[in-house]
């Protein structure tokens, strides 16, 4: 299988007033094309830091990140920008919508970076916003939206250019279970039918259970890994459950 992302002994140390914070301490990771990987771990364990390194936004202190076998450290700024524009969709933990643009424009603007023609941009933005349930709010500014609604705009923006790799930092953090489920199913869906790859950071195990693989991060290291392959018979699952409850 082709690896879309690979990291080799990646570390990231932040220097703050002379105090070094080791956020990522040597991570080896391989993600296949079309895979859905969840990264769980306590707050401060380096999940976001790792995601920024994979997303060509930050530079590792040591080690190397490969995107489709190309080392990111060898790319110049233009190539990295292009990668972020076309191949990677990033859902920020803090949403990072542009406050002067309305919902529609926030999604549309990144399609320009992806080189889409105007008509296609309009069409695709409308359909994406419908998918995340914000068709009615297209002309509103972000500061008029609830946290969950902003998060859904961020999701739509990340999917705008149909990137090969979607990096999601707590994409359901502000959502109730119904809308959260909707987003998770959407991410699952783009993996299954479009062969897009998703790496999702979360601290919600239920969200993590949508993934094919769950990595447990602790203190900047991968502590454990669980493969969730193989869908079981739903009837059998329920039967077992009822048996337990009624014994």
């Amino acid at each position: 299988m082709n690896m879309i992302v690979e990291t080799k002994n990646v570390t990231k140390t932040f220097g703050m007033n002379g105090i070094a914070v080791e956020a990522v301490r040597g991570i080896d990771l391989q993600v296949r094309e079309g895979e859905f990987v969840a990264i769980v771990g306590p707050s401060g364990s380096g999940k976001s830091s790792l995601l920024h390194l994979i997303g060509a936004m930050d530079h590792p202190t040591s080690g190397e990140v490969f995107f489709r076998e190309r080392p990111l450290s060898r790319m110049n700024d233009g190539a990295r920008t292009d990668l972020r524009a076309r191949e990677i969709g990033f859902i920020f933990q803090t949403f990072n919508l542009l406050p002067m643009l309305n919902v529609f424009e926030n999604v549309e603007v990144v399609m320009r970076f992806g080189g889409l023609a105007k008509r296609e941009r309009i069409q695709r933005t409308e359909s994406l916003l419908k998918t995340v349930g914000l068709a009615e709010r297209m002309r509103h500014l972000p500061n008029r939206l609830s946290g969950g609604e902003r998060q859904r705009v961020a999701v739509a923006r990340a999917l705008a250019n149909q990137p090969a790799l979607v990096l999601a930092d707590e994409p359901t953090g502000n959502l109730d279970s119904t809308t959260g489920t909707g987003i998770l199913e959407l991410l699952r869906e783009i993996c299954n039918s479009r062969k897009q790859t998703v790496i999702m950071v979360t601290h919600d195990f239920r969200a993590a259970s949508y993934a094919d693989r769950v990595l447990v991060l602790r203190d900047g290291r991968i502590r454990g890994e669980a493969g969730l392959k193989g869908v079981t018979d739903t009837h059998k699952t329920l039967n077992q459950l009822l048996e337990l409850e009624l014994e």
Partner: protein
Amino acid sequence: MLKFALLGLLAQDPKHGYDLKNELEQALGGHWEINFGQIYTTLARLERDELVRVAAEDRDGRGKKTYRITAAGRKDLAAWFEEPVEKPRQLRDEFFIKWIVGKLAGQSDPMRIIDRQRQAYLTQLRDLTALTGRAGDPNVELMVEGAILHLQADLRWLDLCEERLERGELEKPRAAIRKE
């Protein structure tokens, strides 16, 4: 548990053992097959305790009895409804035993136990989340949601085990509540 389920069904009107099985299965969305043996042993026990009695018996004598709830049975059922469930939701006892025994035996790596357990829980969680919205019966749906929440708690608890283990806190004895 089955005892009160049967009493509850009989509270409305007298029923055959066969009807009881059907109605109970239906109430649970048809996902669970209860075997007859279980029903009949429970009914026999209820009859013995005089909580139900046989109202009629089919002439051919092939065991087709109709059961009716007694006054004592109704009282019992009412009392059951009144009482909250006192027993804590069951812990994953076996894992906990494994955890303790593993430490005692000094054989297994506790981290490995945790890892494997986490994998198992996550797989279960995945199966359960795949079920949400597809169970058919709204009451069963609720049960699935409950099970998911419990699994999440179990996973958090695993995290706690791991964290304490890493910090070496499990080695130190602590002040304990002693039996008087």
